[in-house]
């Protein structure tokens, strides 16, 4: 490990680090625009200029005569980095003055304000006043640049991160620089907008407000947004994300850098695929078929400090437990529980353990696993072909659910094998069926309906009304991924924790809370303590015993990896 001295503080850096990364390890920020960990180095913004020198074996320090770009300069043992000298500060101030010369300073109407590196760096390193007396160069905004992205041309600082992204990560190369000198702009070829499936990432990459998401444009000031660390449920890649919300409304998803999961990016399918959460078709309250609201309330009263409250959930879950018990007492009754690959490990565990307790002969079944097409790998070749496996930088997976592996691990633990809903046609139909949904789109296909048949007691826990919920005896209003705390296991066996970002609409509840209460466990649902319990109980999920999986998640044992189930 090479030792590097950053502003007189000696730290150990990685031999592959550049000055920016090495300084970061010493807690020193070197401001930069064009450099990005996942993209090639161009060293063109010149914001990261620092003084670099070398500590000789005899202890003397020899500094280089010129400033050098921190992004381009590798470190070695004895490298000395100085970021706080007057020379560096002057250069930073000058570079910012240059960058702001033709910048419109329209922060008050700019979406990026509040998370803008031009604002932040100007505040920290810049000058307060521009000395440009002449008119600024004005450029046309380009709303046509992509279906999801708009370019506010005059805010651009020409870092070319977006251009490099489309060349190096998506491989689609729609964006480029046109013209020269201070008149240059980012643009697309006529009628060839930037519409690739990863296009939304250029908005995150843009350090200023030049590239904006049309979906988010003018919807919310970013300082009102609260962010939760979560996991995208769009496919089995399980991208680490931030869910940005305000007052229980989600405004956007952003990728959260995680080299263990997906890297720095996410696909547009996932990024813009959260809209269903706020659909008007959400099931907003639990219900029992054939009962009226009044009697339900009367039966489900709870009291606190001698005041009685109507609690529809207490009523519904009490009734659910009772009905399951009564139905299973009838002769010839069989119990089947259908799990969803959208459930967290904790939810699957709560439900499976509850079901096993009620009826040891219960049939635990995995519901439909949505698959669409083939894995979509990037960067694409010039002809749109997939890259060689060793060169893949991003994959949108065909398996469109977050946690098949995690749920399967739970089912295998309780039952020894995983039954699939579409492969149980030869088995006798169950008389009591508990079905969990949570799919973002219509999933109760005729095949699913046929496999479930017409049990005497059908309990459906889902987020949307469906033909299944219509014929259910009990409907439990469940939560979307943004409302859940728990663990997902991605395609590679990486267990990541997801955190609730918003409260469920109406009376709906995250599945974990429903199942926790259904199982009559003591206390409140807590993902961390459940993870510890699961880690102790299920050898395949032993790493969950850590409780806290960290920001990057933890990898399970290799044997959990299973190929995509053949269908």
């Amino acid at each position: 490990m090479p030792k590097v001295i950053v502003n007189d503080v000696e730290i150990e850096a990685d031999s592959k680090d550049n000055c920016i990364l090495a300084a970061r390890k010493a807690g020193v920020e070197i401001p930069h625009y064009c450099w990005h960990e996942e993209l090639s180095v161009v060293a063109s913004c010149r914001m990261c200029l620092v003084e670099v020198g070398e500590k000789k074996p005899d202890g003397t320090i020899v500094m280089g005569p010129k400033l050098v770009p921190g992004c381009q300069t590798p470190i070695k043992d004895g490298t000395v980095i100085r970021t706080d000298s007057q020379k560096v500060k002057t250069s930073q101030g000058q570079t910012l003055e240059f960058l702001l010369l033709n910048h419109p300073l329209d922060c008050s109407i700019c979406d990026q304000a509040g998370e803008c590196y031009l604002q932040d760096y100007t505040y920290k390193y810049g000058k307060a006043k521009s000395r440009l007396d002449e008119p600024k160069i004005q450029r046309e905004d380009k709303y046509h640049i992509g279906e999801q992205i708009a370019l506010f041309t005059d805010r651009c600082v020409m870092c070319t991160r977006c251009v490099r992204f489309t060349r190096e990560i998506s491989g689609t190369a729609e964006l480029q620089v046109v013209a020269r000198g201070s008149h240059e702009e980012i643009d697309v070829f006529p009628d060839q907008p930037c519409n690739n499936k990863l296009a939304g990432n250029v908005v995150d990459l843009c350090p200023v407000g030049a590239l904006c998401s049309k979906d988010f444009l003018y919807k919310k000031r970013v300082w009102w947004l609260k962010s939760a660390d979560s996991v995208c449920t769009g496919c089995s890649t399980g991208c680490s994300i931030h869910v940005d919300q305000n007052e229980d409304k989600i405004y956007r998803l952003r990728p959260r850098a995680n080299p263990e999961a997906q890297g720095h990016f996410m696909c547009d399918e996932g990024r813009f695929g959260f809209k269903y959460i706020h659909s008007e078709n959400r099931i907003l309250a639990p219900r029992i078929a054939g009962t009226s609201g009044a009697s339900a309330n009367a039966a489900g009263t709870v009291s606190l400090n001698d005041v009685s409250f109507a609690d529809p959930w207490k009523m519904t879950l009490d009734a659910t437990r009772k009905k399951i018990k009564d139905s299973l007492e009838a002769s010839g009754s069989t119990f089947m529980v259908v799990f969803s690959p959208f459930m967290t490990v904790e939810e699957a565990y709560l439900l499976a353990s509850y079901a096993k307790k009620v009826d040891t002969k219960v049939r635990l079944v995995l519901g439909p696993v949505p698959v669409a097409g083939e894995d979509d790998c990037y960067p694409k070749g010039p002809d749109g072909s997939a890259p060689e496996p060793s060169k893949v930088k991003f994959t949108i997976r065909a398996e469109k659910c977050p946690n098949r592996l995690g749920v399967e691990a739970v089912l295998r633990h309780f039952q020894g094998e995983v039954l699939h809903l579409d492969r149980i046609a030869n088995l006798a139909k169950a008389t009591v069926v508990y079905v969990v949904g949570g799919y973002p789109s219509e999933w109760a296909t005729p095949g699913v309906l046929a496999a479930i048949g017409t049990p005497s007691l059908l309990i459906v826990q889902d987020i949307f009304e469906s033909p299944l919920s219509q014929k259910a005896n009990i409907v439990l209003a469940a939560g979307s991924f943004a409302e859940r705390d728990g663990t997902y296991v991605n395609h590679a066996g990486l267990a990541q924790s997801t955190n609730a970002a918003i409260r469920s609409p109406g009376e709906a509840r995250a599945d974990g809370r429903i199942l926790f209460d259904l199982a009559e466990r003591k206390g409140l649902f807590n993902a961390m303590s459940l993870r510890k319990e699961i880690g102790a109980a299920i050898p395949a999920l032993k790493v969950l015993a850590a409780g806290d999986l960290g920001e990057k998640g933890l990898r399970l044992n290799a044997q959990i990896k299973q190929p995509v189930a053949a269908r």
Partner: protein
Amino acid sequence: MSNQEFKPVLLGRVGRPNSQSLESYQADGGYKALAKALSMANTDVIETVKASGLRGRGGAGFPTGLKWTFLPKDINGPVYLCINGDESEPGTFNNRVLIEEDPHQVLEGIVISSFATRTTTAYFYLRYEYGRCYRVLKKAIDEMYANNLLGKNILGSGYDLDIHLHRGACAYICGEETGLIESLEGKRAWPRIKPPFPAIEGAFRRPTVVNNVETMACIPHILNNGPEWFMSMGIPKDPNNPRDAGSYGPKLYCISGHVNKPGLVELPMGITARDLIDKHAGGVWKGRKAKAVVPGGISMGFMSEAELDTPLDFAGPGRVGCLGLGTAAVIVVDDHTSMVDVLYNACRFFAHESCGQCTPCREGTAWSTKILERIRQGHGKLSDIDTLLEISASIGTIPGTTICGLADGAAWPIKTAINKFRPEFEEYIKSGRKSEARQLAGAH
């Protein structure tokens, strides 16, 4: 050897009838140097060039033989030689004359250099605007292929070489070593960050040497006459300065601007600017005096009249605050011309030609142009002068704020013009007058 006696070497065949043809070149002893080189070991050719003290004629003056030795010793796969014929420094036209009048001299130099560097593919990157050069070179290359001077087994030596003639992309930045390579590869001519230097990773990610046209023209003469002959011309290295590599050989000086007889003259390195103007360019026009002289293309900055006795060798212009000898393109400005207009014209050129990659150059060149434009409109402020100086001090490779030297080239005219003619700028701003020179020649 005094200047009067000097017999042109590189321009020796210029003006002769049919000087472009292979037949006439061979009749004058052409391609003997190639035959000689092919009979030598390639390392001996490098040593000969190294011993001659030949420094690159493109502007930076890097020793040519030394550059060749930077190629990796054990190379698998191709090495490329790129000939920089993207002559676009304002005031410079020596490559053009060499190519148009005596293409085989340059091409012979290329074949020898390719042999020395073990190149089997050479790229001739020619400025797009040089249409006649293109036609002449194309014809000359065709003649060479027809006469076994190119292609397989050249002159029976077993050495193979192809030369690809590539027309440039109409930009100043294409003449920058790595900008040229990017442009050759079909990309925007955005100079590359170094390291890796082209000798390690250049065109198509292979070891590459980039040499100027005039440098190539010197090579056959060095082979024919020997390094001692080459070193008999010019200014020897300064014994007190170990970093000085001397300025040897003949040099083409392009003289333009306010002189009676603008043109291209060949002289041994080290003539003073005053002699050049008075003895070889017929003096300043209209009986006027020179006010400022550009020693080597506008990017080198300005010399004042008092500094005209500076020798124009690689070290001379640097001693009077200029960036260097550059392309030895001497532009004379007479004393009736406003330095504000001259500097504006220079700045406008660099603002137009900045590739836009590095922030300081992209914004600094445009900003300085805007300030000078305003001063020329009569709306200048005295503080503008210091702002201009600050801009010129904060852009370029010498403070380390840009990737390539274009910004240095943009900064030096500002620095030297203001430092040497500051009272004129102050007087101009205080007078609040508008520039009379509405239409300026030069940068488009």
